[in-house]
């Protein structure tokens, strides 16, 4: 009697069981190797102590971490209102760029110009121009806030990027889907909303996660026009202590937020894929 029957498993189950075990062992060993190499070899380098003191300084970290967390609330706040605005504006620009009818030609042109300009111009310039320039035109106090205008700069820039990704997603849906939906009597709008976009968005989730993560970090660019968010705070400490550890602290905070978010998105995608196929 073959071995797998004895174990009450089919041949495939046995094989997969073994494979899984083997790969777990490999994963374990290789991780250990890498970690060991880093932990034992890097400190042997002549400059390690200095580097450690500059980048991984426990004392500096504990001293600055609470304040960094505090400043991170500013990031969360700006992120919280910018992200939805970006998603909506980005989608609208993508739809404008994809307008089919020749009558909507101006919309197409506008969409293309928007993405070209706001993608091409460095974010910092947009932040300066809108964040200092527009208030500089003579707006009174509550309306010249760098939070408002800086966020607008971020929203415009990121919308351009996000729009291009949506467009990639829309173009990746085969036109026969559009035909089929139109043939049912749905309007162009309904076709887009119910048939094309759900497939398009699914196709670009990882790319849009990219943008979400990049945005979370680029909120920091607002610090150029004043707001003290986590990165500026880290920079202040960097100057004060002449030490880069506060940046490591900031990175830890970012990772704590982004890694679970990306893992969860991946998990959702994988589950959906399994369900449908």
């Amino acid at each position, binding site marked *: 009697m073959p071995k797998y029957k004895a174990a009450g498993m089919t041949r495939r189950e046995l094989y997969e069981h073994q494979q899984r075990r083997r790969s777990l062992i490999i994963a374990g060993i290789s991780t250990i190797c890498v970690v060991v190499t880093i932990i034992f070899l890097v400190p042997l380098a002549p400059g390690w102590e200095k580097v450690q003191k500059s980048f991984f300084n426990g004392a500096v970290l504990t001293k600055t971490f609470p304040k960094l967390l505090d400043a991170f609330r500013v990031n969360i706040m700006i992120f919280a209102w910018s992200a939805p605005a970006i998603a909506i504006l980005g989608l609208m620009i993508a739809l404008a760029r994809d307008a089919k009818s020749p009558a909507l030609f101006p919309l197409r042109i506008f969409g293309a110009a928007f993405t070209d300009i706001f993608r091409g111009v460095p974010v910092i310039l947009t932040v300066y121009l809108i964040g200092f320039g527009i*208030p500089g035109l003579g707006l009174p106090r509550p309306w010249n806030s760098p939070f408002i205008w800086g966020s607008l700069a971020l929203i415009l820039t990121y919308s351009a990027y996000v729009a291009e990704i949506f467009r990639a997603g829309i173009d990746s849906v085969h036109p026969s889907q559009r035909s089929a939906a139109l043939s049912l009597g749905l309007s162009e709008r309904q076709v887009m909303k119910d048939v094309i976009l759900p497939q398009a968005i699914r196709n670009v989730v990882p790319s849009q996660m990219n943008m979400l993560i990049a945005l979370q970090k680029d909120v920091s660019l607002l610090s150029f*026009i*004043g*707001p003290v968010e986590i990165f500026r705070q880290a920079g*202040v400490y960097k*100057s004060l202590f002449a030490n880069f550890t506060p940046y490591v602290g900031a990175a830890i905070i970012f990772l704590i937020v982004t890694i679970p978010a990306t893992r969860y998105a991946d998990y959702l995608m994988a589950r959906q894929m399994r369900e449908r196929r």
Partner: protein
Amino acid sequence: HCASGKTLEKGKFTIATGNPAYFPWVMDDAPESGQGFEAAVGYAVAKEMGFAKEDVVWVRSSFDEAIQPGVKNFDVNMQQYSITDERDQVVDFSVPYYTAPMAVLVGASATGTAATIEALKNLKWGAVGSTTAVQKIANSVKPNNAPLLYADNADVNAAITANQIDAAMFDLPTALFLSAVMIEGSKVIGQFPSSESDDADQFGMLMEEGNPLKSCVDTALNSITKSGILASIEAQWLQDTTGVPLIK
């Protein structure tokens, strides 16, 4: 003599300055001319250490490059680095070559503010994030609104011009320069007494941690202080710094 064999390049004395370097510390962003306070101090120290004018090499560096671990590309770095304990643990500082009082610069809309801590508390504050002005605002002014922080002087200018902040903290020479040349309608309304507290702002030359050159530089600085050369350089380039009222 003292410095021989201890410099980056044999027979040369390499001084780093900012990119760009500002008035009145360096004139026209050209330290080679020896014009401007820090440029002049640099040459005076070099001379004292026995370097000819031609042997002084100027390089540019950012703050970050100055504090990176590892090999540096300069012997000393002069760009208004305030000496602090924290920084001293990572890099070495020479004895101070200037003691800068902190001063308050206000935009056109706030020129009427009285030079008292009480009045200053109600202003919207700004400062350059990498300077000790941040600590000064937090410790001495304790404003009602959290200050906004910027990357450099130009950004603070823009924020004052856009009326996003009322007041900014600089060292006095910089504040005077900005008010006179850069920001229309602005005014330096007061300075903090430089002896007031332990966190008086003293500028020192920055060197790599453990740099053997430190003792030579210190000796040279001490001797030009004693001989009055330093004071005369200060008088030449930073003469207007008196006459600003003290903040009470």
